[in-house]
């Protein structure tokens, strides 16, 4: 049952082959049986899940069921969930039980989805390996000695290991796409503003975006349909209708113009197996009638440095509210206000979060603002402009999702810059606010690789369409890790 996709499970529920309660039990059992090896969940909400499943079964009996009704899912622990601990992978929020639901959580629950629990993640979504979580690292189901990528590593590992049919993730610089690539699943980062950020604990507000993680593009389309849409509680959410992603899935690819990013293929450190995997996907695209050309993103090499000014700057401010005053742990016996702040924050945050707060506070400080923050914003404009020019020539821009396959746990923890370069192909997309998807490509060294497709603003339908067509013709996304 757990090998079925969301679409298949949905059909099974509709046909009465099984109930949501049975489905939910099955996945809860799988979590119990396998997650010890993966550590992909921080919190499993068994009781609530079963109660919710019962309720949606009743809804179905009353004739109120949509395609998502009764389907279990996991939420990244960055989404606030009413009456459930929402930790963000941080000691700072270990005791935080949210008093409200995030919009994404609320919408999916309203569509009848059943939350199995909250998935592990890099602390406050800062990391590319899921090793910065205060709940310990997540293991990659393809090789448990390796990382699953991050920061949505728990969601990625859980979906790859079939512990949940689908999961939500968030992507600030690649946090959906990179772990999707490293665990062999499909993950979509929508256009900035497509999904509401209300209730999504902010890392870098101008870059953060929620998105679906699943095994197929079709499942991503189903899940995104439930997540996306305007939300008056988020001023940056887009006030425009959501496309019918499902209706667009089967469009043929004849005449599609695809641009391969020249600079990304020439990048130092690109694994030859990953490059070969990209070539293989391109061949399939051509076979289906797409035309592949090269495009240039001349400022893309500046995206990592620009990102590591903008994102930390925003995070340094976003994380100021974690001060030990209203929620989260407070240090013992503070001797005065300053001591309370210093110790509560020193004890509550992990090393990577502190590093980024420091970088960000520095970049915004008087005398440095123009040289760092303002300059980075200018670079961001140039990168967005690069994409605009490229999209005048092509419908879709493609590249590998990551330069390498999953690396061993601990391999990059002492070298933050090497870790940051994990996101070298994904970050530019966030800086430009564009949608992008990572789909499984042929394995390299027996490990998953990802193929990234970047669309024009609000053209998620195109990404899902092309990804779906590729997946209809190939089986790269069908492989399951052994032992799960």
């Amino acid at each position, binding site marked *: 049952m757990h090998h079925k996709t969301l679409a298949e499970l949905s059909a099974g529920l509709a046909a009465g082959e099984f109930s949501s309660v049975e489905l939910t039990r099955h996945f809860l059992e799988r979590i119990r049986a396998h997650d010890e090896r993966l550590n992909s969940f921080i919190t499993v909400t068994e009781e609530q899940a079963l109660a919710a499943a019962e309720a949606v079964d009743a809804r179905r009996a009353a004739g109120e069921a949509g395609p998502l009704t009764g389907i279990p899912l996991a939420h990244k622990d960055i989404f606030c969930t009413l009456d459930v601990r929402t930790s963000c992978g941080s000691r700072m929020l270990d005791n935080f039980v949210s008093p409200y639901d995030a919009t994404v959580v609320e919408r999916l629950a309203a569509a009848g989805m059943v939350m199995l629990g909250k998935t592990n993640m890099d602390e406050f979504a800062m990391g590319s390996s899921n090793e910065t979580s205060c709940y310990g690292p997540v293991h990659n189901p393809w090789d448990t000695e390796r990382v699953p990528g991050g920061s949505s590593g728990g969601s990625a590992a859980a979906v790859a290991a079939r512990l949940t049919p689908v999961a939500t993730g968030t992507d600030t610089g690649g946090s959906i796409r990179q772990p999707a690539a490293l665990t062999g699943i499909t993950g979509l980062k929508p256009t900035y503003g497509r999904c509401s950020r209300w209730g999504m604990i902010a890392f870098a507000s101008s870059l953060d975006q929620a998105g679906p993680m699943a095994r197929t593009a079709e499942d991503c389309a189903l899940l995104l349909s439930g997540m996306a849409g305007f939300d008056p509680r988020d001023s940056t959410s887009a006030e425009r209708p959501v496309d019918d992603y499902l209706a667009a899935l089967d469009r043929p690819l004849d005449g599609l113009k695809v641009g391969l990013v020249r600079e990304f293929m020439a990048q130092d450190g690109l694994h030859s197996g990953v490059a070969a995997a990209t070539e293989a996907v391109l061949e399939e695209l051509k076979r289906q009638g797409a035309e592949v050309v090269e495009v240039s993103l001349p400022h893309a090499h500046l995206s990592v440095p620009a990102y590591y000014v903008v994102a930390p*700057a925003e995070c340094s401010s976003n994380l*100021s*509210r974690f001060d030990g005053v209203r929620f989260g742990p407070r240090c013992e016996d503070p001797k005065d206000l300053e001591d309370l702040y210093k110790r509560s924050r020193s004890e509550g945050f992990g090393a990577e979060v502190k590093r980024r707060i420091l970088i960000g*506070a520095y970049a*915004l400080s008087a005398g440095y603002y123009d040289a760092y923050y303002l300059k980075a914003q200018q670079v961001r404009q140039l990168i967005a402009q690069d994409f605009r020019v490229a999209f005048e020539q092509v419908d879709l821009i493609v590249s590998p999702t990551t330069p390498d396959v999953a690396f061993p746990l601990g391999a990059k923890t002492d070298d933050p810059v090497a870790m940051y370069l994990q996101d070298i192909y994904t970050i530019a997309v966030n800086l430009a606010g564009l949608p992008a998807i990572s789909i499984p490509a042929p394995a390299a060294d027996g490990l998953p690789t990802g193929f990234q497709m970047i669309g024009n603003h609000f053209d998620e339908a195109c990404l899902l369409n092309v990804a779906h067509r590729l997946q209809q013709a190939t089986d790269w996304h069908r492989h399951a890790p052994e032992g799960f």
Partner: protein
Amino acid sequence: MQWEVVIGLEIHTQLATRSKIFSGSSTAFGAGPNTQASLIDLGMPGTLPVLNRRAVEYAVRFAKAIGAELGERSVFARKNYFYPDLPKGYQISQFELPIVGRGQVEIVLDDDGVKTVGVTRAHLEEDAGKSLHEDFHGMTGIDLNRAGTPLLEIVSEPDMRSAKEAVAYARKIHQIVTWLGICDGNMQEGSFRCDANVSVRPLGKEKLGTRTELKNINSFRFLERAIDYEIERQIDILEDGGRIVQETRLYDAERDETRSMRSKEEANDYRYFPDPDLLPVVLDEAFIEEATRDMPELPDARRARFQEQHGLSAYDANALTATRAQANYYEAVVAACGDAKLAANWVMGELAGALNKAGCGIEDCPVPAPALGGLLARILDDTISGKIAKQVFEAMWAGEGDADRVIDARGLKQITDAGAIEALVDEVIAANPQQVENYRNADPAKRPKMIGFFVGQVMKKSQGKANPQQVNALLREKLGG
């Protein structure tokens, strides 16, 4: 040495919106601690601000009122600092691109002169909460009801040259924001707060002296006293060869002094940057038109019109336009009696005195404007004298009805019958032979003054009802000389 004082004010006006600037919580004053704090006001993880449209409209009205440029595109920025009553660890404010640009207001000085004071800018921001230091046994309580209340911070040019001018400017801003109805102007509740930047420099020097910022001033009287104290303090230091430290100082009303709060060295680096949670505010013509459509005639325009149309002095016109309610009242009195000057004297004199004594505002005046106009009409048609009118006014104030009714009921109608007045005049002349003698022997130049005694006697005999002009004329005739 002669010193020149340079003062600029930063005025925080709390906008009279029903809900907060970035959340739907109520802004009502005086509720139990933290009962008007939503998830957003508490800075809960994952919450986001949404701008209150009404706050923007109010800022636009203010801009129009002071002839300011409106920022076509204004940007909210985060001002980062840690304090327990600042839940997010940053205040959402505006920094580089405020909503209201350069404008100006006119203030009327004591000598009836008019001075223009520049407004540098005005920006929208959210208020912080309150720290409560009592009743917590060495701890501090936090009340976030006020957190997120909309403020319009109005920053002036350093154009004021005395505490009096600063107060006149502050009153002017107070007049405008309450006139527009965008702020209730309540200084005790903190709806209108002034910070003053004060420096002194040798007269004639271009370069500004080092300034200090005075905070915690909650009345116009204290504003004047705090600035005067600070001017004196700075001059004393400079004359003793010392130098002024740039710092923030708190005004202590009880001791009537300012005290150092923090120096520039200790000041925060606020690390301002555009708030990525909020879109830039882009004002289009339609929005501005809608926001300003129902704007009332503004105080300066009305003052000018009062001067022109009613022949008032700048000082009187200014006083009569202190508030919109006052100006409306005055014009209603004029309409009812037809004499602008008499109406001005009464509204600023008898009426203001009575209101002051009763401690009530003109909005709650027990004598409606048409009724006061009716009273003045009786002076004008010689039914009563101005003196009797004061009696009638008191009765009207006490609720005895309109002027005619009081005059009737109390028999206060003026005596204009020549025969009756003559009889009274004769009586007085007969009863005061010595005074008559003195009068007749006096230097004619002194006589007009001396006649006052006889007028007084006649009026007394008539219980104030005799027509004073007739009494005067008759006395002059009878006393001769």
